């Protein structure tokens, strides 16, 4: 600006802030400090790691891959034909052995591998508005290509996710005694009460020429279709488990469980794997040694680093802030390197 106003400034305000003199602490990375930090981290991490690992180890888990085993011998070469043939009986029986005592509740999961629920085309293909309430029924724009039937009426629930719902079913028995599977409360309450409307009923679902996955009972509102709700919580990883139900009795060691599987879901066309998982739980969740191992490893490494630094410090001590290290106090020939 031309006008001289800016040059006739007043005397500056004197405050710690304006003078950049706010009281400050200036920690430096002194050996004592750093070594203590690493040692401390190591000492904290190892017990936490042990606890996590212990918790994870206490979880009893039975995993059974059944996608290949459930295809009859003679159809192994063409599994796709098997799964797409609606006349073939898809029932298959598996025997599972309980390795250790499993305390109730025992969670039943199905696990899919190489299934991209996080694919962009897939993950976007849903309409939260439609799921939430009846008013949003016609809000199916985002659901393409599973938005409307060929005659133009809306599909509820629309979209690829709902359309491809997992539909294998499992029945459990021990010594011919049927084990009850509780399929209530497997979805999140927040979903049941807020995301899926109690006045929204399935409509025109799976009525197209291609049938994707499971069908829905059109007389039950979406908020009670817990399998759908669970399925609609898309997984972020191509290998994932979803809750199927709960067994609410303890399973004794070495008991043999008979599982009757209705193997309906097509993972054969893309080489996906299906597994049935029975698992107890702990404070850390399901069986997952990763956290424990990572904590132990890093805790160990920290101690190692601390020890190394101590060694370096003892072998090659270096006094901090020695001015003779300053290059302008040093031999200028040092430049010639």
């Amino acid at each position: 600006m031309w006008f001289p106003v800016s040059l006739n400034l007043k005397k500056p305000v004197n405050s710690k802030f304006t003078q950049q003199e706010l009281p400050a602490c200036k920690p430096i990375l002194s050996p004592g400090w750093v070594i203590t930090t690493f040692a401390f981290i190591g000492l904290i991490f190892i017990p936490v790691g042990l606890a996590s690992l212990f918790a994870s180890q206490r979880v009893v888990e039975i995993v059974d891959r059944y996608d290949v085993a459930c295809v009859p011998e003679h159809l192994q070469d063409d599994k796709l034909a098997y799964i797409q043939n609606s006349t073939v009986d898809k029932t298959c029986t598996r025997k599972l052995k309980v390795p250790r005592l499993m305390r109730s509740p025992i969670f039943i999961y199905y696990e899919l591998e190489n299934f991209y629920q996080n694919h962009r085309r897939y993950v976007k293909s849903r309409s939260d508005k439609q799921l939430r309430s009846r008013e949003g029924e016609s809000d199916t724009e985002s659901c393409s290509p599973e938005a409307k039937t060929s005659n133009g009426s809306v599909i509820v629930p629309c979209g690829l996710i709902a359309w491809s719902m997992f539909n294998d079913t499992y029945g459990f028995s021990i010594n011919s005694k049927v084990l009850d599977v509780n399929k209530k409360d497997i979805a999140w309450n927040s979903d049941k009460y807020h995301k899926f409307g109690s006045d929204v009923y399935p409509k025109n679902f799976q009525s197209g020429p291609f049938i994707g996955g499971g069908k829905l009972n059109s007389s039950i509102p979406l908020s009670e279709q817990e399998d759908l709700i669970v399925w609609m919580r898309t997984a972020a990883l191509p290998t994932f488990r979803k809750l199927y139900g709960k067994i609410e009795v303890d399973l004794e060691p070495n008991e043999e469980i008979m599982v009757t599987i209705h193997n309906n879901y097509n993972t054969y066309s893309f080489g996906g794997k299906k597994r049935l998982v029975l698992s107890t739980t702990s404070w850390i969740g399901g069986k997952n040694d990763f956290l424990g191992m990572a904590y132990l490893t890093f805790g160990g490494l920290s101690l190692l680093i601390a020890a190394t630094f101590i060694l370096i410090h003892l072998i090659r001590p270096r006094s901090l802030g020695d001015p003779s290290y300053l290059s302008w106090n040093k031999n200028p020939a040092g430049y010639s390197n």
Partner: protein
Amino acid sequence: MKRFVYINDNEASHDPYCDNRISNRKYTILNFLPKNLWEQFSRLMNQYFLLIACLQLWPLITPVNPASTWGPLIFIFSVSASKEAWDDYNRYLSDKQANEKEVWVVRDGIRKRIQAQDIHVGNIVWLRENDEVPCDLLLLGTSEPQGICFVETAALDGETDLKTRVIPTACAGLASELLYKIKGVIECPNPDKDIRRFDANLRLFPPFIDNDLCPLTINNTLLQSCYLRNTEWACGVAVYTGNETKLGMSRGIPEPKLTAVDAMIDKLIGAIFLFQIVVVIVLGFAGNIWKDTEGQQQWYVMYPVEGPWYELLVIPLRFELLCSIMIPISIKISLDLVKSVYAKFIDWDEEMYDQDAQCPSHAANTAISEDLGQVEYILTDKTGTLTENKMIFRRCCINGTFYGNNSGDALKDGELLNDVVNNVPDVVRFLTVMSICNSVVPTKSPSGEISYKAQSQDEDALVNAAAHLHMVFVNRNGNVLEVNFNASAVRYELLDALEFTSDRKRMSVVVRDCQNGNILLLSKGADEAILPFASNGQQIRSFSDAVEQYAQSGLRTLCLAWRELNEDEYTEWSLMFKEANSTLVDREWKLAEVCQRLEHDLEILGVTAIEDHLQDGVPETIETLRKAGINFWMLTGDKQSTAIQIALSCNFIAPEPKGQLLLINGRTEDEVLRSLERVLLTMRIATSEPKEVAFVVDGWALEIALRHYKEIFTELADLSRTAICCRVTPSQKAQLVELLKSREYRTLAIGDGGNDVRMIQQADIGVGISGREGLQAARAADYSIGKFRFLTRLILVHGRYSYNRTAFLSQYSFYKSLLICFIQILFSFISGISGTSLFNSVSLMAYNIFYTSIPVLTSVLDKDLSEKTVMQHPQILFYCQAGRLLNPSTFAGWFGRSLFHASVVFLITIHSYANEKSEMEELSMVALSGCIWLQAFVVTLETNSFTALQHLAIWGNLAAFYAINCIISMIPSAGMYTIMFRLCGQPSYWITMFLIVAIGMGPVFALKYFRFTYRSSAINILQQAEHSRAPIFRDFESPVESSEKDGISLPSTAQPKSSRSPVYEPLLSESTPNAARKSRGQTTIEFFQPPQNRLSYSRNCKNN
């Protein structure tokens, strides 16, 4: 190219010129939006973000809600638009105030009061005492009988003294009633911005029969924004109005300066952009392949067998959008913000507050503080910059007699006082020239005391000294000069004044002695402008000796001379002078030629010597800054010996045994060339010797060198740390700056006067000293300071901190953007390379402009070293100069860190949230909070000093992250409803967070510690020393002092440019501690390396 102004011509239809409405506004209400948007979009980065935002409107390819880009974009745009709007509104207000001011104007022969904006060219404007001049006027009449008036031009050129303005001779003696009816025509040049020139003519119409062409000069004008002082009234005709006035023409928006840091940031952004393109192409390609192979088999994705034509583009474009966050959208706005804080810190700095002048330092340009820390060359003016420009008459030599040599003060020299009392003719003539050969205006206060208003400090000193010696200049009454000598009044009639120009380097007056009618030419000027014109018979040897002697003691000399003219000679010359005076083209040059015809055969009277004190702390300042590796060049209009003397006294150059001065001189091309080559040779050898070498060049040789031997001179400039250029013109100063800039040195020009303005504007950083020569330099400068010594603080404290802070802030901005982008890219590998975004729109939007922007802003408070340490070890500035903290290799470090951190966050997240926990929203929040935790610790690790504010920003931000996400988690319709509560309740979530922080920071921490302790940079060493307090300040002093004595301790002594590359690290100590310890005792001895050693070093560098 002329304009004709018809005085008092009321027929407005003739009026082709604009009215007096001033408008500084950039916008109007109507064009604000389009114009501002257009301006903002002319920036490349904004175009890029607009393109991204538009692409996001295509739902098929957008990975997230378009709001995630539009939001920040609109936010950033509205911030800068409202800033512009506010500035423009203030301009509008000040315009309005000026436009609506009421002024008296003659309309139809009657004086009327109208608004200033309605003045038209040709109107006669009346002003009263203390009125502001509303437009450029040609003075027609004043209340003073002599036809003069006084104006204060401070707003125009910053000079606070009163200036005399006279009415043109044609109008002299007109009664004020006649002024209402006066008619005439003024022939004047088209509007320009030269406030020192107005080459025009006036011709009055009958009945004001002076049919002569009357020449006009700047002295006949009243320029807009000046104030009328000490004059009851004045009137003038409007010549230039509105935005066409001299003031209006010199307004204008200066070219924005780009700092080296900004240039580097732009370069890095370009590099990131290229990287992004590569990523997009690779991933797009891979994505299309996956789609055609795997994707077709994944029935639930329902890929159509035959897609639309643009299908191949969809996945690359999706990745482009996904990766667009790689370029931090917030970086420019954060930088603008912190830069304005740096500027404020400069304004606020109490230690740079000039107690004498009651004026604080001021950063007019808020955008270039970082450059201060990277200065390599300082080009300084001498007078008023290094010195106080407080001139005191100290000695004189009158006709061979030296006065004041013993006492150091001629005014107290009894001999001189005696001679004055005894009316020794030489002395009297000498004193007469001293007192009236000038443009000084004496003013008498009511109490009878006489004070002088002088435009030049030298003249002021001379007139005051003459007054002390009983030759009192009492009054300037029109053309009559009254002098009181030994209590008797002497009158002179001023016939002509031959003004001073920097080319002529002298000024003269032609006066008629009223007692005897003799016509006298009185001259004063630089020795080389006076002595060659001495009359043939006179012996000038003694005068040049005197000049030499005075100059060697650092005094400014002026030679005084006179000549009696005979009547005929004068009349003849006077005609030529008048003619030259009324030319419109090249008037200055023609005048000089005419003056030359009179100024010869002078009788030299004597030499005056004026002392100009060095400013406080100048030697210390120069020493400190030179230790910081900054090279100093002194550019002065003064003569060589004075310049060298001043240079010696302010540590600019070392005295003989240690320093060596190499002269470049010569009048012809050959001589200059020979001299240049000789100096260059010496200089090359000298780089290997423990010697400070400086070259001295004068304006004439410089002109030749710059014109014909630019390469040689450039090489010389590269080699020389110090140079003294004397007798240089303003444009040569600017040329030298240009030369250094062309070698990619960061230059800082500092000066105080109007003759420094061009150099100040030319340099990367212009610093003006708001001194006695007015505010012109200060106003043109990027920084204005009160005293030269504030420069140390400006550079070492403000410049250095600004550079460090910006270096961290900008690289951190890249780091955090790359971090989140790398996570997205990693995620795409497990989502079928389909371009799914792991993070939701809200998170992405808030991440860049919120979660990660706030903590880092507190880096404006960060100080790696205390101010005291930096002042004690100015060498540390080398890190900033060489750009060690922000360059491609440090950026590579940050790039690597973000890649590492992205992998840590991603891998830990997907492993600990595997299987039944792999729910999309949860996993995305885990990854996001991992990023936020890491960034909090990164900022913590990189912060050197923690104030309460920093803790608040870093940890408060972390808390705010949880608070915000918990609030969003309470909204049922939000995608992440309940997610945050769920996560916070899981022990495994917290365990995961700690794991991410530990694994992410552990190696960084260990590495930093290792480098800090075992590969310490000089900064680290000083930090350690600062912490342990004790040894450094005790031990340190001795080696520093001894190295000073050797004078070769500076790390950058004549270092070739190549070694200044930012990656090259000679400052780091490489030797083992034991070796260093051994050498400690011998430090000083080892300076005396055999010269061959160092010679080979410099040769090595050249080979690089």
